[in-house]
């Protein structure tokens, strides 16, 4: 039964491919080849099942059974006031806003001044960008069913290119809205971010449904950080309970670059984050941090990989989770240290609080170390709130509910310390406090 349903979406996708491909009249012939190959790969590999080790604790079954609309019609009814609250609007930013996968020019603000913040569709179609596309597009995402599916239907997304020796003058927001004009929808954003030598940018990404209809997002982002580049990426995942997200983010770093990804998973039905770092130089720093706070039947899965290839590099992973009711969390953190990658420092920690007997966390560190002179640590904790600490707060007059909120807030808080944009920190603080159902008695 399930298998048939699963086949249905897969077959629908494969059979729609021709029509989609015919529509494309761009100049880049190579893209045709890439897409045609990708749909073949998807046809062979299909969607991942729980038989695969990486999906042992996360079944996509329930989200693949919907009859998703693949090509939504253009609809521009959305105004700024409808979406303002989902943007970090307190500061000046470049904005790339997509509605049902279609670019919305009136809600966006782009630039070509020293940096390119524009659309994947134009980058794919214009000769000007061909060298960058040829060099980087689809060069990093590993070949698997979900990535191939996204590649086959690549059409729109963010294209960001920070040229050599440039500081992006403001953060860039990539926001994908779904409107529910269709009963259910599959969207597949495709982002390419290339940060040249000595350059710096900050990116905020959000997927937000404006409807109660089911939405499935299968997003692929490839990020290239050249020598001494700094990239800070913030993912705000606070979607409706009808929306699911499979986020696939791949980062390649050259020598002395710093990249960080913060993932805040507070909403959504099912969220799967595939986050891979590939270190292709020396003295690289890769940081990934996450806060997950979920309840009900929500499911959040963080699947990370750091591939240490060269010597003298570092990686830092710190994921915290708070799980209530019947929610399910998964953390699968893989660290590979190649033989040449001596003097690697790799840290990983995953700490969880279960607020309910029915909540589940599956935490699985995987270390594959082939070098002998390295420091690698990993730690995982699963616990309840500390009764002694609760009593301490209560004895100061703080009601138990607020006291447990304060403790949970404090538990998640140190992940926020490394957030460099104060407005994001403030926003996440508020979301966390709201999510924990407490009005903390101090200004966040």
């Amino acid at each position, binding site marked *: 039964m399930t298998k048939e349903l699963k086949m249905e979406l897969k077959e629908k996708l494969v059979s729609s491919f021709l029509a989609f491909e015919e529509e494309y009249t761009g100049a880049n012939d190579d893209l045709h080849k890439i897409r045609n190959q990708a749909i073949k790969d998807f046809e062979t590999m299909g969607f991942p099942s729980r038989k695969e080790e990486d999906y042992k604790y996360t079944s996509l079954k329930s989200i693949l059974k919907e009859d998703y609309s693949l090509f939504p019609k253009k609809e521009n009814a959305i105004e700024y006031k409808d979406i303002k609250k989902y943007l970090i609007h307190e500061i000046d930013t470049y904005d790339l806003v997509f509605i049902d996968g279609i670019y919305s020019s009136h809600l966006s603000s782009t630039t070509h001044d020293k940096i390119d913040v524009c659309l994947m569709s134009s980058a794919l179609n214009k000769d000007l960008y061909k060298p960058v596309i040829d060099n980087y597009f689809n060069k990093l995402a590993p070949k698997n069913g979900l990535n191939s599916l996204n590649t086959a239907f690549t059409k729109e997304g963010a294209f960001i290119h920070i040229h050599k020796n440039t500081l992006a003058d403001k953060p860039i927001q990539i926001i994908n809205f779904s409107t529910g004009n269709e009963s259910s929808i599959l969207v597949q954003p495709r982002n390419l971010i290339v940060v040249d030598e000595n350059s710096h940018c900050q990116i905020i990404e959000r997927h937000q449904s404006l409807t109660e209809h089911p939405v499935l997002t299968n997003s692929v982002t490839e990020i290239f950080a050249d020598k001494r580049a700094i990239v800070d990426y913030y993912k705000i995942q606070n979607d409706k309970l009808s929306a699911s997200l499979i986020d696939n983010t791949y980062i390649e770093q050259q020598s002395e670059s710093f990249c960080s990804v913060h993932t805040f998973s507070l909403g959504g039905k099912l969220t799967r984050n595939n986050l891979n770092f590939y270190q292709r130089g020396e003295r690289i720093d890769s940081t990934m941090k996450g806060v997950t706070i979920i309840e009900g039947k929500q499911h959040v899965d963080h699947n990370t990989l750091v591939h240490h290839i060269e010597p003298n590099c570092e990686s830092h992973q710190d994921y915290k989770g708070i799980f209530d009711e019947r929610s399910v969390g998964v953390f699968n953190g893989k660290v590979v240290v190649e033989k040449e990658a001596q003097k690697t420092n790799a840290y990983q920690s995953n700490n969880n609080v279960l607020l309910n007997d029915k909540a589940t966390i599956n935490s699985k560190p995987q270390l594959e170390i082939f070098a002998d002179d390295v420091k690698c640590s990993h730690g995982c904790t699963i616990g309840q709130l500390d009764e002694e600490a609760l009593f301490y707060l209560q004895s100061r007059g703080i*009601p138990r509910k607020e006291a447990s909120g304060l403790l949970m807030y404090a538990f998640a808080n140190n992940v926020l310390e490394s957030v460099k944009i104060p407005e994001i920190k403030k926003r996440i603080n508020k979301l966390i406090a709201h999510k924990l159902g407490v009005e903390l008695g101090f200004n966040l």
Partner: protein
Amino acid sequence: MLKIKNLHASIEDKEILKGINLEINPGEVHAIMGPNGSGKSTLSSVIAGKEEFEQTEGEIIFENTEISEMDPEERAHKGIFLSFQYPVEIPGVSVTNFMKTAINAHRKANGLEDMPANEMLKKIREKSESLGIDRKFLSRSLNEGFSGGEKKRNEIFQMAMLEPKLSILDETDSGLDIDALKIVADGVNKLRSKDNAVLLITHYQRLLNYIVPDVVHVMVDGKIVKSGGKELALELEERGYEWVKAEKAV
């Protein structure tokens, strides 16, 4: 102010308090002394409402209200304060933010609006200065990485901020060097008035040189076996606890 009658309490079916009677009036300082394991700290936790302990018998009457069934926060709102022997470290919450949260929780429980920010800051400044607390200390995470002395001073700072009617100081002197002890004792003495009361739980007499009690009780095996004036503490210091136990046995 506080009347404890025939209080029995146990943890995991093991009886620790075996019939405590104690009465503390406004303006008084009482000290409870006793050997390790006599139940002193349990008594302070039970008065503050720690749920781990089961009160099996007796009454705790505070300001004419039976509080045995109240949550710890309700007891705090009524004016009971417990200075912990081992204050808990709470990373991620600064001393200032914690204090604001606690003060406003008290005010809310008493039907008052939040304290205006400038008033709060002024109060925090005054109280911290009077205890010789460095301003940098206030933005640090609560008790995290504090030395023993800093933790205890921070407890007294919280007491000064919350202005309780009854302050229970559980082994506040343990782990303090003489200078820190003087600062803490000085802080407590400044807060004494004819309307509030202090209950000191201590092992040693030396704290009582600085905070002079009106009444000294000796607790042995879950019971108060002897009460007297401040000179009783000196006698205990000199002769140990054995003679009290012996006297009791006779």
